[in-house]
C-alpha cells in the first residue's frame, strides 16, 4: 500500500514535469519553416500528393530505413528465440466453423486491400507500413483459424530479404546517380502529378516496404504461434 | 687533535699496558670489598694477576670454528680501541694517543664492536646458554643506552661540543665546574645507565654469576679465556674513564704526576664503586623488569635533562 502511494506520488511528480510544458503550449497557427517547405515545395520537388509520405519516404527516408530495420531486427530476434527454443507444439483448439469460412472468404480480399494501400501510399492516406500491417492481419486471421496448420517461413523470409535488399540498393542507387542522393526518389521520373505511377521511386519503395513489413509481421505472428520454421508454406 | 705519528703506536701500547695493570689491581680491590661486605676474607690483592697469567699459559685449547676463534680478538680489539680513543688524562700525550680519531659518538659506538665479536664467537660454540645471555645483554643495553644518550645530548648542548677532550676542558677550574654540579640531571641519568652497563646486580641476570654462569665467556677456555679476561681488566676502566671524563671533570694533567695518578685513581675508583655499592645493596631484576625500569625513571630523567639543557643553553 505504502509502495503504491509512493508510486502514485512519483507518477504525479512525473506528470508535473510533463505539465510544465502545457502552459507554454498553444496550437500552432503557422507551420515551422521546414514543414512549410514540405507543404509548399514538396509536391513540386517530389511529385507526391501525400506530403506525409513524401516526408516519410524521402525527406526523412533515413528514419524510415531505420524503422524497417527495427522491424527486421525484431523479427530476427523472434526468429532467433524460436530457433533456439524448439519445443514440441501443443495441439490447440481449431477455429470455429464461422471463423474458418470467414477466413477463406476474407483472406484474399484483405491481401488485396493491403496491396492497394501501399501502392497508393503517395496519393492517399496509407503506405507501406499500413499496407504491410493489413497483410499481416490476414495472416493473423489464418493463424487464428488454423492454429495447428504448419506455415513455414521459407517464402516469407525470401520476400523479406529480397525486398529489404532491394530497398537498400535503390537507396544507394541515388548516391551513384545524383549528388548526396541517398534514398532520393527522383532517380525515376516524377511522372504525372496525382497518378499511380508518379512520384518517382516512392511507390516502388512503399511496395518494397509493404512487402517487407507484411512478411516480417507475418513471420512474427507465425513464430509467436510457436511454429517451427522448418516446414515449408 | 693531532695527526698520526709513529710514537703514538708506542703511546697506545703503553696506555694499554698501564690500564691492564690498573685494572687488575682494581679487580683485586673490588673483590676484596665484595668479600668484606659479605664478611669473608676474600682473595689476595694480586690474585687477578695470577689468574690471568695462569690462563695465558694453559697448554691445551679447543676451538669450535673460525668465529669462535676470532671472537676474543674482536672483543679485545673493541676494548683496547675505546681505551685509546678516549683521553685518559687531559693533555697528556701519552694518554691521548689516538683521541684524534673521533669524538664521543665514535667511542660509544665502538663499544659494540667487542660485544658483537664476543657474542658471535660464543654463538659458534653452539651452547644455547651463551645466546640466551647475549639476548639478555642486548635487551638490557638497548634499554639503558637511551638514557645515556639523552645525558650525552644534554651535555653536548651544554658544552656545545661532542669532543671528549673539549668536554673535559670545559669542566676545568674547580669542582663546581664538573658536569655533576653544572648539569646534575644529566649526570643522574647517565649514572643510572652506568649501572646497567656494568652488569652488576640488580642488572646482572645477563651473566648470572652466582648460579650457572652463562654467556660467551663461559664457552671459552685457555688463552681464549685469557684474552677475554685481559679485556675484562681494561674494559670497565675504559668505560669508567669515559664517565669520569664526561661527568666528573675528567683528569687533568697536574704538575705532579703522582697527583695526577691519584686523582685518576680516586675518580675512576669511586665511579666504579658506585656500581659496586648499588650491586651489593639490591636484589636482581629479571630482564623485562630491568627494561621497564630503564624506560621509566632514567628515561624520564634523561628527557628532563635534555629539555632543561635545550632551554638553558
Amino acid at each position, binding site marked *: 500500500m505504502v509502495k503504491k502511494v509512493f508510486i502514485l506520488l512519483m507518477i504525479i511528480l512525473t506528470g508535473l514535469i510533463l505539465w510544465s510544458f502545457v502552459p507554454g503550449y498553444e496550437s500552432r497557427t503557422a507551420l515551422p519553416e521546414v514543414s512549410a517547405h514540405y507543404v509548399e515545395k514538396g509536391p513540386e520537388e517530389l511529385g507526391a500528393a501525400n506530403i506525409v509520405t513524401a516526408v516519410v519516404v524521402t*525527406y526523412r527516408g533515413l528514419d524510415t530505413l531505420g524503422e524497417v*530495420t527495427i522491424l527486421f531486427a525484431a523479427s530476427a530476434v523472434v526468429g532467433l528465440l524460436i*530457433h533456439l527454443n524448439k519445443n514440441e507444439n501443443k495441439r490447440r483448439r481449431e477455429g470455429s466453423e464461422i471463423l474458418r469460412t470467414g477466413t477463406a472468404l476474407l483472406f484474399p480480399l484483405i491481401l488485396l486491400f493491403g496491396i492497394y494501400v501501399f501502392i497508393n501510399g503517395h496519393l492517399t492516406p496509407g503506405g507501406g507500413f499500413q499496407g504491410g500491417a493489413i497483410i499481416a492481419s490476414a495472416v493473423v486471421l489464418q493463424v487464428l483459424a488454423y492454429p495447428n496448420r504448419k506455415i513455414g517461413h521459407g517464402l516469407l523470409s525470401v520476400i523479406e530479404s529480397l525486398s529489404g535488399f532491394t530497398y537498400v540498393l535503390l537507396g544507394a542507387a541515388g548516391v551513384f546517380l545524383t549528388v548526396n542522393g541517398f534514398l532520393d526518389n527522383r532517380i525515376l521520373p516524377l511522372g504525372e502529378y496525382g497518378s499511380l505511377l508518379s512520384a518517382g521511386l516512392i511507390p516502388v519503395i512503399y511496395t518494397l516496404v509493404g512487402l517487407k513489413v507484411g512478411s516480417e509481421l507475418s513471420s512474427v505472428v507465425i513464430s509467436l504461434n510457436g511454429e517451427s520454421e522448418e516446414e515449408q508454406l | 687533535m693531532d695527526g698520526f705519528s709513529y710514537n703514538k703506536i708506542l703511546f697506545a701500547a703503553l696506555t694499554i699496558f698501564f690500564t691492564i695493570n690498573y685494572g687488575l689491581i682494581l679487580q683485586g680491590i673490588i673483590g676484596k670489598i665484595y668479600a668484606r661486605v659479605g664478611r669473608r676474607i676474600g682473595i689476595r690483592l694480586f690474585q687477578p694477576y695470577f689468574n690471568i697469567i695462569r690462563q695465558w699459559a694453559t697448554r691445551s685449547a679447543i676451538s669450535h670454528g673460525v668465529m669462535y676463534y676470532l671472537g676474543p680478538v674482536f672483543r679485545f680489539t673493541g676494548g683496547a680501541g675505546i681505551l685509546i680513543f678516549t683521553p685518559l688524562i687531559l693533555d697528556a700525550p701519552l694518554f691521548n694517543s689516538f683521541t684524534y680519531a673521533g669524538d664521543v659518538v665514535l667511542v660509544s659506538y665502538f663499544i659494540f664492536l667487542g660485544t658483537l665479536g664476543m657474542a658471535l664467537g660464543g654463538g659458534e660454540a653452539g651452547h644455547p646458554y651463551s645466546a640466551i645471555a647475549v639476548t639478555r645483554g642486548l635487551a638490557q643495553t638497548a634499554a639503558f643506552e637511551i638514557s645515556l644518550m639523552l645525558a650525552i*645530548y644534554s651535555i653536548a648542548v651544554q658544552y656545545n661540543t661532542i669532543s671528549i677532550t673539549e668536554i673535559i676542558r670545559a669542566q676545568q677550574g674547580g669542582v663546581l665546574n664538573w658536569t655533576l654540579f653544572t648539569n646534575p640531571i644529566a649526570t643522574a641519568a647517565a649514572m643510572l645507565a652506568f649501572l646497567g652497563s656494568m652488569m652488576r646486580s640488580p642488572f646482572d641476570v645477563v651473566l648470572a654469576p652466582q648460579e650457572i654462569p652463562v654467556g660467551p665467556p663461559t664457552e671459552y677456555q685457555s688463552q681464549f679465556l685469557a684474552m677475554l679476561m685481559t679485556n675484562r681488566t681494561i674494559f670497565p676502566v675504559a668505560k669508567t674513564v669515559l664517565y669520569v671524563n664526561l661527568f666528573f671533570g675528567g683528569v687533568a694533567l697536574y704538575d705532579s704526576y703522582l697527583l695526577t695518578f691519584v686523582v685518576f685513581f680516586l675518580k675512576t675508583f669511586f665511579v666504579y664503586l658506585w656500581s659496586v655499592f648499588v650491586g651489593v645493596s639490591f636484589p636482581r631484576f629479571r630482564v623485562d623488569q630491568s627494561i621497564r625500569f630503564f624506560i621509566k625513571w632514567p628515561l624520564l630523567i634523561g628527557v628532563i635533562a635534555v629539555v632543561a639543557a635545550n632551554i638553558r643553553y
Partner: protein
Amino acid sequence: MVDPIYLIVIALATAFALGLFRKAPSLLPYGLTLAALAVMTVISGSWAYGILSGSLEGTDIFTAGFTPPVSINLYMGSLEAVLLLLVNLTALMTALVLRKEVKDTSVYMLMLLLVFVMGLNGVIMTRDLFNLFVFIEIVSIASAGLIALRSNLEQLGAGFKFVIAGALTSGFMLIGIIFTYYTTGSLNMDVIASQMSPALAATGYTGLFLIFIGMIMELKPFPVNGWGLDTYEASVPAVSALVAAGTTSAMFYAFLKTSYMSGGLFVQAAAVIGGMTFIGMNVLALQQDKSRRLLGYSSIAQIGLAVLAYALVALYRIENGEFIVFALILTHALAKALLFWLAGIVGKDSIHDWGVIKKKMILIAPFAVAVSALLGLPPFPSFFAKWDLVMGLAARGGMVWIILILSGSLLEAVYLMRWFGNAFKDSFNEEDTLDWRFGTVLPVFFNMTVLLALGYLSASQSSFSMGFNWILLGAVAVLMVLDFLPGIIKNLLLMGAIGYYGYGFVMAAESYRSVFAWIFALGALITLLPGFGVKGKRMGFYPSAALMFAGLIGLIEAVDFMGFFLSWEIMTLGSYFLILRGKDSKPHALSYMLFSLGGAYLLMTGFAMTYAGTGSIALGALVKAAIIPHSGIIFALLAVGFMTKMASAGLHIWLPGAHAEAETDVSPMVSGILLKAGVFGLLMTAISMGEQSIGPVSLPYVLSWVAVITALVANYMAAMQEDAKRLLAYSSIGQMGYALFGISLMSHLGWLSALVISIVHFIYKVTLFLAIGSVAKRTGTRNMYQMGGLITKMPFTFFSVLICIIALSGIPPLAGFSGKWIVYNAVLEKRWMLQGAVAGAAGIIAFLYLFRLIFAIFLGQLKDNHRKVKEAPFFLILPQALLLGLVMFFSFLPGSLLRPVGEILEEFTTAGALEWQGNMAISDYGYWNGVAVMWVFMALFAVFFLILTINGRRAQWIKQFNIVFAAERPARPETTHFSYNFFAPVRKALGFLEYPFTTNFWNRVSDFLHAVAGFCRRIYTGNGQTYLLQMVIFVVLSYMLTKGGF
C-alpha cells in the same frame, strides 16, 4: 573517398540479404558478415586516417538530394571517424570471436550483429534528433536480441529488463524530442544549437531536460543501472565486449551531441551524475566477485568518469578537453572489450577461478595491459587524459573534483588489481580448458597492441610536454617481444642496455640526482647478475624489471612533473609485476599497488596544486611553490606521497610482505633500490620547498617524529620476526625512517646523512637480501629457527652477512658509522635531541635483530637435514662480493663518499657543512677520522690475532655439537639451538609496540568500504519493475535538482 553513407548501406544490405542464406552452410553467411564488417572497417579507417593526417576534412553527408534542415544529414568529422573505426573494428573482432555461435543461431545472430553495428554507426554520424532516436532504438533492439544468444533464463531475464528500461528511457526521450520540436521548430541538432538562447532554454526547458535525462539514462548512471549490470553479466562475453566498447562509446558521443545542442544547459547536472556514477560504481564493485559483472561495474564507472570529464571540461573551460574526454573513452573501449574477450577465453565467471588463464602464460600480458590502461597508468592514453584533467582542474580551482576523481580511481584499482592478482597467483584445475582459438586470441592481442600504440600517440596530444624518454619504454617493449628467448640472453640484453644507457645517464645527472643515478644504474646491473643463475625463460621477469628500471631512470631524467609522475607510475607498475612473481605474494602485491597508487595520487594532487599556483610544471616550479598560498599543503601532500614509497609509519604495512615474499633477486631490487625513489622525491621536495608549515605546525618537525617512530617501531618489529626476509624487510622500513629523519632535519648535515644512508643502505640491503635469499633457497625455509650452524656450510655468505650487519648497525670502523655520526651532529645543530634519542634507541634495537639474524642462521647448532647444504651459487655470490668491495672501499676511505656528496649539497646550504682536514671530518660539534679508526682497528686486530695464534697454535678444532649441556651431552641439535622467540623478555617488556595499530586501522577502512558496498548494492534487487521505479524517481529527482523545483 568512399561516401560514409555506404557504412550504413553495406551493413543493411548484407543483413537483409542474409535471410536468403538461411539454408546455406553457415560459413557462407558468416563470411559475408565478416566481409561486410571488414569493408566498413576499411572505410571508417580510411576516413580516420585521412582526417587525422589532414588530407581530408570533415564532411556533411546529405540524404535525399536535399540539404538540411529539409532532409536528414549525417556528419563525418575526426571524432566520428575515430569512433566509427573503433566500433567497426570491435564489431569485426567480435564477429571473429563469435564464430562458434554461428551454428546454433542460424543467420539471426549475424543479422542482429550487422544491424547493431549499423545502428551504432548511425548514432555516431547522425545530426538529426529524431533520427538519433531511431538509431538508438535499433541499437537497443539489436543488442537486446544479442543478449539472448544462448536463451537461458539469466539472459532472458536480463534481456527483458534491458528492453523495458530502454522502452521507458526512449519514451521520455521521445517526449523530449517532440517538445523540443515544438519550441524550436526543427529536429536538426545544428539548427537547434544555432538558435539556442537563454530564452529558448527557458521555454524549451522540459523538452531539453527530457532529452538530457534520456541520454544520461542510456549511459546507465548510478544508481539506476541494475538492468545494465545484468546485461553485462548475462550476455555472451563477446557481446558484452561489443556493448561495452561500441554502445557505450557511441551513446556517449550521442550524449555529447545533444549536450552541445542544448548549449551545455545541464553540464552541472552531468558533472554530479557522472561523479556519482564513477564513485558509486567503484565502491559497489568492491564486493563483486563475478568477473563479468565486475567488468560491468567498471564499464559504467568509466563512462561516468567520461561524463564527468566532459562536464568539468565545459564547466572549468579546461584546455584540450576533446583529447581528455576521448582518450578516456577510447582507452576504456579498447581495454574493456579486451577484458570481455579475455573473459570469453577463460570461460570462468568467478574471479577466483581465473587462475586457469596461466595455462597460456602469454595471456597475462594483455590482461595486465588492459587493467593498467583502465586504471590510467602510463603509458596509456587515459594516463595523459587524467593528467591533463587534473592539472586543468587544479589551475581553475576544482580541487574537490580532483579528490573525487582520484579516490574513485583508487577504488577501481582495488578490485581490478585484486582480480589481476588472483588470476596471476591462484592455482587452477588442470582439466579446465581455455577457449584458445585464432578467432578469440587475435582480438585480445590486437587491442593490446592498439592500446600500446595509442599510448605513444596520446603522449604527443597531451597539452603538457612529455619530459620522458621513450627509448626506455622502447627497451621494455623489445624485451616483451623477445620474451620467448632464454632468460640468460634477455638478461644480457637488459644489462647491456642499462650499461650502455646508464653510463651516459649517470654522467649527465647533476647535483643530488647523480647520487641516485648511481644507485639506480649500478643497482640495476648488480641486482640483475643473479639472473644468470636462473634457468629457463623466466617469462615476464625481464620486461617487468626493465619497466621498473626505466621508471627509476626516468625519475632522475625528469625535468617536469609530467615526466616525473609518469616515471613514478611506470616504476610502480614494473615493481608490482616483479613483486607479484613471488610465491605467496598475492595480498602483499595488492596492498603494495594500492598504497603506491594512493601515494601517487597524492603526488599528482600536490603537483597539480603547484601548477595551479605557479603556472609551471617544471620540477623547478617547486622552488616557486614555496612561497605561494597553500604551500604547506603542497608540501604535506608530496611528503606523504613519497613517504608511502618509503613505508613510513602508518603507510608501511605493504612493505614487509611485499619484500619478504618477493623472489630472491627481486627483494634486493625493491628493497635496496626502489625505496630510494621515495627518498629522492622527498629530498627533492625538501630542498626545493624548504621549511613549510600548515598553520602553526611545522611540517619537518612532524616528519621528524614520524621518522623516528618509524625507525623505532620497525626495528623493534624486525627483532620479533621469525622469518629472516621479513626481518630484513622491517629493517628496511627502519632504515628509511632514518633517511626520512635526515631529510626532515632540513640542514646540510641532515640531508647529507639521508644521502649517505641511502647509499650504504643500498649496498648492504642488497647484499643481505641476496645472502639471506640464497640461504632460504638452499635450506628451503625462511624461518630462522629452522636453520642454524650454517657458517661452515656457507662461509662466504656468512662473511658477507657479517660485514653487512656491522655496516648496518653503524659500528665503526665500517661505512655505516658515517651516517650515524652525521646524524648526531645534525641533531645537535637542530637541537632535536628527543627525536635524536629515539632514533638512537632504534639504532640500538637494531643490534637485537642483527644479532638474531646472524646467530640464528649461521651460528649455533647445525640441523641434521642441513648437513648437505652447499654454498650459495656463484651468481648470487658475485654481486655480494662486488658490493662488499664497495663497502670496504667506503670504509677505508669514508671521505671518498662524504666529500663529494657534501659538496653537492653545498649548492643548497653551506651552514653546518663538514670541514675536511686531510681524512678528518670536522663538524661544529665534533670530529671523526675514519681512516685512523680503520687503521687502529686493523692494527689492534692483527696484533691480538697474532698473540692468540702464536700462543694458542695448538688449539684443537672440534664441531659445535661437541659440547656439554647441563652436565650431559645434548641429544639433538634441534633442541640445542636457541632461536625461537629469541627476545622473549623484550617482548614481555615492550610487547605493546607490537600492537597492530596501523594494520587495524587500514583493515577497518577496508572493512568499512566493503560493508558500504555490500549494503548499497542491495538496491540492485534484480526486479525489473523496481528498476523502472528507480528510473522514474531518478528522473523526478534530477528534474527537481536541476530546475530547483517544478
